[in-house]
């Protein structure tokens, strides 16, 4: 059921007024939610949005019951009031002994939603009926967005952006170091209220588009995705806004292209896709990058261990002599496959050469590196024995891990601290001492 090229083109170029409105509305919502969500995310208020959005339901239903009207601003006002009440309830419950934040959020979202459903079942039986318009608050109905709705979203998004930019510095301080902010006389409570107000505004206008169950996703997922790419708050905020916009745009476009795709859910899935890509592929914090980093570190460590083992064996033999592969294998906890793999790499890098069918020797360049490793190892061992007061029999393990990361300046300092000249210090382990 793939769309024709014509539909495809018309949708992407926003030729239809309806598509234009929906895409513009969801994109702007995505930007606002991503930006304000960044602060909420860093302040660990992410799930507060969940309680908030569920708590809007009784307000919507109550307004309808009381005024009998589906006038949108009025419904949004009701949603705001009961949403704020829900947030206050979470904050109040959290102060009761024995009630933790997670429980407070769960209590508020389920009880308020229950209350909303009770009121809803009354709405369904009222003569004025037609609760259909109200049900869009639960699942959202972006596809039926009117120009007026898009304007409301645009206005809110604009206000949220202005507020976020104006208070950017203050938000940054309370996100990262609340105690410091407090000690500097920053009105943390007022700023918290301002931040929550921005979250509430975004959530309430998001209800219509993605529904109250999923609107929290727009507050959480884009910031969480943006966090993988950067440590800089300004950049993270921009990226989160961009991810939100991208999700809103692609979700609305996809559901315009294909029949029977609920827009809100597709927007959330697009955001989820952006999150997945970020989590896997981000350059530094991404999972793939960190797996690769660990893998190459492991390879480097194995390689350096091989060289050091050879240097130690030469030292024991009192001169350059080939070492048997069997002896190497016994020396460390290597499996045969691991050992052969690391030998292959060392041979390729010309640090080691075969000296017979089953024996290895260090090349000249290999010996330089191997000696350096051995020296680092011994220096660290001696340092631990002398300054950390660790028994000589215990230092080998520790040095085994540290020798690979000792930088030139640290080695310099170790030399000074230990009064060690350029030579290799002797081993502190008697069994390894060269046989004389």
């Amino acid at each position: 059921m793939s769309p024709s090229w014509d539909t495809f083109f018309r949708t992407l170029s926003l030729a239809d007024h309806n598509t234009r409105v929906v895409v513009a509305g969801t994109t702007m919502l995505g930007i606002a939610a991503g930006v304000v969500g960044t602060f909420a995310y860093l302040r660990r208020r992410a799930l507060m949005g969940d309680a908030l959005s569920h708590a809007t339901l009784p307000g919507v239903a109550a307004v309808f019951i009381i005024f009998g009207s589906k006038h949108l601003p009025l419904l949004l006002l009701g949603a705001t009031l009961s949403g704020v009440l829900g947030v206050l309830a979470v904050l109040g419950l959290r102060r009761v002994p024995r009630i933790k934040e997670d429980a407070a959020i769960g209590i508020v979202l389920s009880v308020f939603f229950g209350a909303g459903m009770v009121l809803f079942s009354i709405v369904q039986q009222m003569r004025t009926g037609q609760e259909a318009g109200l049900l869009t608050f639960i699942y959202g109905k972006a596809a039926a967005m009117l120009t007026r709705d898009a304007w409301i979203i645009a206005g809110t998004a604009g206000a949220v952006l202005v507020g976020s930019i104006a208070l950017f510095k203050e938000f940054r301080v309370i996100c990262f170091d609340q105690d410091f902010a407090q000690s500097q006389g920053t009105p943390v409570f007022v700023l918290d209220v301002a931040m929550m107000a921005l979250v509430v505004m975004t959530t309430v206008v998001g209800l219509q588009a993605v529904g109250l169950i999923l609107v929290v996703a727009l507050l959480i997922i884009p910031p969480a995705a943006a966090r993988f790419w950067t440590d800089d708050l300004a950049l993270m905020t921009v990226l989160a806004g961009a991810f939100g916009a991208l999700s809103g745009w692609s979700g609305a476009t996809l559901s315009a292209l294909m029949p029977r795709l609920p827009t809100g859910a597709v927007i959330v899935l697009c955001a989820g896709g952006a999150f997945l890509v970020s989590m896997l592929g981000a350059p530094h914090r991404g999972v793939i990058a960190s797996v690769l980093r660990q893998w190459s570190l492991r390879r480097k460590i194995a390689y350096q261990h091989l060289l050091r083992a050879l240097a130690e064996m030469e030292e024991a033999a009192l001169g350059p002599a080939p070492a048997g592969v069997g002896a190497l294998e016994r020396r460390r906890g290597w499996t045969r496959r691991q050992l052969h793999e690391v030998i292959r790499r060392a041979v390729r890098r010309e640090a080691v050469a075969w000296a017979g069918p089953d024996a290895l020797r260090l090349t000249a360049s290999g010996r330089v590196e191997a000696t350096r490793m051995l020296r680092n190892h011994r220096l660290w061992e001696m340092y631990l024995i002398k300054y950390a007061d660790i028994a000589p029999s215990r230092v080998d393990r520790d040095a085994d891990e540290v020798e690979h990361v000792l930088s030139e300046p640290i080695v310099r300092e170790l030399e000074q601290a230990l009064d060690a000249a350029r030579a290799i210090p002797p081993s502190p382990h008697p069994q390894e001492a060269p046989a004389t």
Partner: protein
Amino acid sequence: MNAAWDWSMDGWILAAGVLSAGACALLGNFLVLRRMSLMGDAISHAVLPGLAIAFLVTQSRSAWPMLLGGVAAGAVTAVMTEAVHKFGKVEPGAAMGVTFSVLFALGLVLIRRAADSVDLDPDCVLYGNLDQIGFEGAVGGAPHAVIHLAVVFAANVLFVGLFYKELRISTFDPELATSLGISARVMHYALMILVSVTTVASFEAVGSILVIAMLIVPPVLAHLLTDRLGVMLPLSVALGATAAAAGQWAAQYGPGQLGIDYSVKTAAMIAVVAGAMLAVGVFLAPQRGLVSRAVHQWRLSLTIVREDILGLLLRWHELRPAEGRAIVREDILAAVGDTWMARWGIRSLVRRRELRLPVGGGLELTRGGESRAAGLVRSHRLWEAYLAEHFDIPLDHVHFSAERAEHFITPQLRRELDRDLTAPGVDPHGREIPPEREG
């Protein structure tokens, strides 16, 4: 729907509500104590795609595939949340938010795409269909949903009963559990699986919102009432069942009582009643309720202000022995602060015959009052002496500490202090420490 009670229908609704509430509340204790309450929220949303896939594959609403799909989705939620938290270094709450919203969205899309072929309504998952339960296909007189819930309830009771020790230790002290050879991870996943099973069994009858409410609210309420896990578990089940029964009653008869001619959703009403019960608990719980804590605070403040007044009178007399023993009320209030608590304190001291109103006006200590005041002043000065002796505190600072400590020093502690200081006659400021009196 203000119909009269009808056991053949309402009885089954009651049974379903009570069983589901009990099953959820029992497991919820461990979620709440582990600070993972929202895992219940996450799982109950995230089972949707599992149910949808089970529908799409089998094209039926039969129990086993649904259970399998739901449990698989629940397990996926738990694993995915942990993976996002661990590998993505996302904080746990946000990791859960990402996971469950994406899974729920996936469920919505699947259901919508398959709307032609399957009769599955996301509404049903959210808030169930408890009011229709009596009409669903019945086996041996009992509706399927009730039988499923009974089995799940029994399974949860069995699980908690068999692994009570393991659950308790791994909940309160995961490190100890690990050192005892109990895998906290296995317990975690077992709990998550059971929560998923309970959610799936409940969704048909009561919906996920009630599941969340029942997982969290009764255990939190029970925790306000007791510290003992052995009491908290059955108490939470009883509270959940009470909420279910009361909620059903409120849904059926509440609107009529209010003169409104509408019926309301039973499951939603149960959640509201549970919330109301919690609100009452938050205020009225015997020890931790707001009211009893406030009362406790008041009583403490009153005791302190009374003792301050007694001490004031004694010291006044000590400083100005010539001026007689009585002080006018206004002077007392000026010294301790003119609050209603202080006025009340004076009145109650007179009532307790520790102060009296002599003929010449003002207030003076009775024998009993003087004895209590002397004990208090003795506590104060002994404490000052003790601080000066054992701690390197400047002399002008010991008074503030003693001012607070005097109200909490018992006669027994005074004896200890006296012995420690080898019966000092005077405090560091050179004032006499009154001797201990009997009574």
